[in-house]
Each structure stands twice: as C-alpha cells, then as structure tokens.
C-alpha cells in the first residue's frame, strides 16, 4: 500500500485567500467558491475575463484572481458582449444580482441572451437589493416585506417576481439555463455541477449560458442564517423551482 497522500480538498486557485466583506450568513461567498472551483476544474483562470456588476458583487476583482472589467449597473451583459467579441477565445462571465439583472439591466440580459453571446451569466437571486439596504427587488416574493414594501409586496401595485431562468430559456440564442440553490449541502453540490455545465457550454462554443442561484440575505431579511436557509426551502423554491430549463447538449 502506497503511503503517498493525495490532496482532495483545497482553497480554489482562482479565488484569492482573503476575507470577504459579505455579511454573516450571506451566500455570495459560497457562490464565489463554486464559480472559482469551476474555473479551476476547466483550467481557465488564466484566460478568464470577469465582468463585475453593481451591488454586493461589485468587488469581484477583490476575491477572484482574474482579469475583471467593472460594468455600470445592469450593463454587464453589454460590456461582456464587447469583451467576448473582442476576445472570442477567452472565457467570459458576468456575475450579477437580481436588481442589476432583472430590473435595470433587463434589456441588456435579454438581448445578450438572444444574440447567443458566448458568455456565462451567474445570476444571484436573493429577492432584495442587498447593497442599498434591502429594498424591494424584481424578484421580491408576493407579500414579502422590504424597506420599500413595508406592508409586503402588493402584486396589484408592484407586479410579480420575475422568473428569469424560465424567461431566458425561451430565447433561441440561449444554450443553457438553469436554477439552483445553495441552502443545503446537497443543493450546493448540485449548484457546483450545474455551474460547471454552464462553463462547459461556453467552452464548447454552444452559445449563451445562464445559472440563477437562489441565495440568502440574512441581514436584509432580518433572519439568522439558518432561518434564512429555511426560507429558501419554504418560500423561494416553491416560487422559483430548481431545474434545468434548457440544455442544448441534451438535445
């Protein structure tokens, strides 16, 4: 029997060994790690250009050891379009929150997806504007209280939460669209697998790939991290089902 030891777990190479600014219980850190692990898995760190958005995820460059371009609020898919067209052999991804992608950036995400831009979009849905202090987002659930829906989201006045993964799956240019969550170890494992599938979609040149990640914001939800995880299971997943809505590799 060999005495050589095999390393089976380590800090991802693509992720800097620094402390993040995220709140306790925030799942951006987990999602960052899954993205970095996918980068390491495919060995693309050195050829990756990330596009950061505006919101809690704006400090992408502080945590990922990769080249990064910072985009105006909501415009990351348009910036990434310019990047990918200029550098078609590079790995290009955006990392956006729900206010950024599903409200102010709706036009940019739909048209980048519809053109089939060869980028990967990581979309973090925590049903609120985290950075600005917990205002109502396009994904805020009906009756959910936020700082700008203090009596609960009134769908008669505010409309309905948008299911982006399903919406984008309808577009011809989209090769991969899925929703995952990171509220349980099992879901984290599944999210890691799905993010890798999205990366593979780009690396195989099959078109636009999109992963929506349901994520907790304990600070703005006014919950401890465990209750926040329970809320994802009890309230978010029933409205935002976990599934792969489109995968052209399966066709």
């Amino acid at each position, binding site marked *: 029997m060999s005495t050589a030891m095999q390393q089976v777990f380590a800090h991802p190479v693509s992720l800097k060994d620094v402390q993040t600014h995220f709140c306790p219980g925030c799942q951006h850190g987990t999602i960052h790690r899954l993205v970095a692990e996918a980068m390491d898995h495919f060995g693309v760190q050195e050829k990756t250009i990330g596009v950061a958005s505006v919101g809690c995820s704006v400090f992408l*460059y502080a945590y990922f050891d*990769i080249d990064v*371009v*910072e985009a105006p609020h909501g415009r990351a898919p348009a910036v990434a379009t*310019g990047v990918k067209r200029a550098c078609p052999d590079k790995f290009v991804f955006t990392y956006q929150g729900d206010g950024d992608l599903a409200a102010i950036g709706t036009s*940019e995400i739909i048209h980048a997806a519809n053109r089939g831009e060869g980028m990967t979009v990581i979309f973090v849905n925590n049903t609120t504007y985290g950075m600005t202090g917990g205002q109502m987002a396009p994904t805020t659930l009906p009756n959910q209280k936020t700082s700008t829906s203090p009596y609960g989201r009134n769908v008669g006045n505010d409309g309905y939460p948008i299911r982006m993964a399903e919406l984008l799956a309808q577009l011809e240019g989209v090769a991969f669209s899925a929703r995952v969550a990171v509220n349980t170890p099992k879901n984290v494992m599944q999210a890691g697998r799905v993010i890798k599938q999205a990366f593979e979609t780009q690396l195989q040149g099959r078109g636009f790939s999109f992963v929506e990640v349901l994520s907790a914001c304990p600070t703005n939800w006014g919950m401890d991290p465990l209750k926040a995880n329970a809320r994802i299971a009890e309230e978010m997943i029933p409205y935002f089902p976990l599934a792969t809505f489109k995968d052209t590799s399966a066709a």
Partner: protein
Amino acid sequence: MQKRLLVKGNEAVAMGAIEAGCRFYFGYPITPQSDIPEYISREFPKVGGTFIQAESEIASINMLLGASACGMRAMTSSSSPGISLKQEGISYMAGSELPGLIVNISRSGPGLGGIDASQSDYFQAVKGGGHGGYHTIVLAPHSVQEMYDLTMLAFDLSDRYRVPAMLLGDSVLGQMKEALIPHPYVAPADLPAKDWAVSGKDGRAQRVVKSLYLGDGELEAHNWKLYRKYQELRERETRCETAGLDDAKLLVTAFGVTSRIAKTAIRMAREEGLKVGLLRPITLFPFPDKAFADATARTKRVLCFELNTGQMVEDVRLSVARDAEVFFYGRPPGAGSLPTPEELLAQIRTYYKD
C-alpha cells in the same frame, strides 16, 4: 494626381475609422447619423470587423466599453437624444480611463427636437455630459475632409491620453457631399502600449478596469490624476484654424458648420474693406484659450457665431484678454434654414469698429 472621392460626411467618418484600424462598432439607428452604421455594416465584413446593432444606445456604449477594455480601437455613433442615453457609459469610460470614439452627428433639441443643423449640444459635449466631473476630448470638423482626418486624430488622442473622444458634427456636415482625399493612416510611433487592457491574466498580475474607488484617499488621487490629464490636453493638444489675424479689427469665431458661413461672410467683409479675422476652434475640449488670449491681445472685438442661443461664447469670454469685448450672434434650431452669409455680414458691420 491624388484620388478625390465625392462622399458624404458621415461616410467620411466611417472611412476614417476603418483606415485608423477601428474594427469594433456598436450602435443604434437614429437620424441623421445612420449612414455611419450603414457604411460600416457593409464594409466591416471585408476587413474582419465586428459590427453590432445593439438593442439600445445604452447597450452600445457599454459594448464599446467592453471592447475598449480589451485594448481594441472601438467606436459608436449617434445623435443628440442617443448621446444623452450614452452619457452613463461615457462617464464610466472616463472614470475607467478607457479610450474610444463617440460620434455625435447632432440633432436640434431639446427633447426629440428636430433634425436640422444645430449646435445645441456644445455644453453637453465639452462640459462632461454625464455625472462626476470629467471631460471628453471633443473635435469639431467643418468639412468632409476633416470628418475623415479628425476621426483618425480622435482615436490617436483618445489612445494617448486614455480619455474618451467625441467627434461633434451636425446634420449638414453628416449629410453633405464634398471632395475627400483619402490618405493612409499612420499610427504615431510614440503611442503608449495598452498595458492596462484585460486579456486573461495568463501568468502576469491581475488587471482590473474600474471606476470604483472606495479606499481612503483613492478617489481623490484618481480625480487628481484625471485632472492632470485634462491639463496636459489643454497645454499640448489645442487646435484651431486662424485667418487674417495680423490686421483684424474684429475677430469672428465659430466652430463646425457655422465657420463655413463665417468664412464667406469674412470674405465679403474684406471685399468691403473691413479688416475681419477668423479663429475657428477645432478642439472644443481642450478649448484653444491661448489662441484667443493671443489674438485678443491685439484685436479687441470678438463676434461669436453659433447655431444656438450662446454656448461656446462662454468659453470665448473666459479665454479672451480682459479688455476685449465679446459679442454674440446666434439662432436656435428650428428655423428650417441656416443663417446666410449676408445675415452674418450685417452683424459684422454692426460690431465692427476701425
């Protein structure tokens, strides 16, 4: 004999951009600039360029931002309301020190306004346009030839200083046909390498293109850096055309299309024996303030002529000698016709003093 082509001003912009090595264009249709994307969409496939008709002006400026961040020569073009939509992205480009060309073949405003010739976007162009207190380099051609030449210059200046550049024209300059003598683009030998562009780190240190500075003192230092570049532009890159300054008793100043009318009116005035000179700013930012100071050390009367109710005249007043008098003649857009040389000549006679 040199090859002379009869082309539209808008086409000259597109030809100059292609000649200068621009291979990325992102835009959205709007009158009176649509000849530019039409020409480029036809010619880019022949030279391996990337043309995207974006979903909006906002998307197109951000695509430009992305391509520029990768170190590519890239451009967009639009007209006034579309330029307003682009201001967010222009501000981010300025803050991120990204070069790039934005062409404004302006309409007449405010709002949807009209499509006749106007210079109502001067303030927007030279005073920043978007939020945050920045400048873009602004070049103002007055002929089809200059639409070609200044497009090339705009790319060079923008790359050298890492400041976005704007070419400011109008519907006359964009739509009229004139002789163009095309010439090969020669890149300045001393253009700095784009050692800031993202490309995937590939063994080197991480590169980040950003405008967010939250660290203690970082943003102030960044803004001083931008300020120093604007000062350097002011010291080194002002350009203007002058004529008849030696004996002028009255200086007429105008940019772009109005300077063509001014030239005719000045010729007519000279024929009457009036000693009238011309100072035509070619760079609107940096504004040729020293040229005005020098000219008004001797010529104490200045008539500023614009297709608006008085915008460049403010910069003229800030630039002239303290004892010089500045007069203004202008008309806002909407008349359906341009002021005539005779109309300006009457103004010249009014303000002229021997």
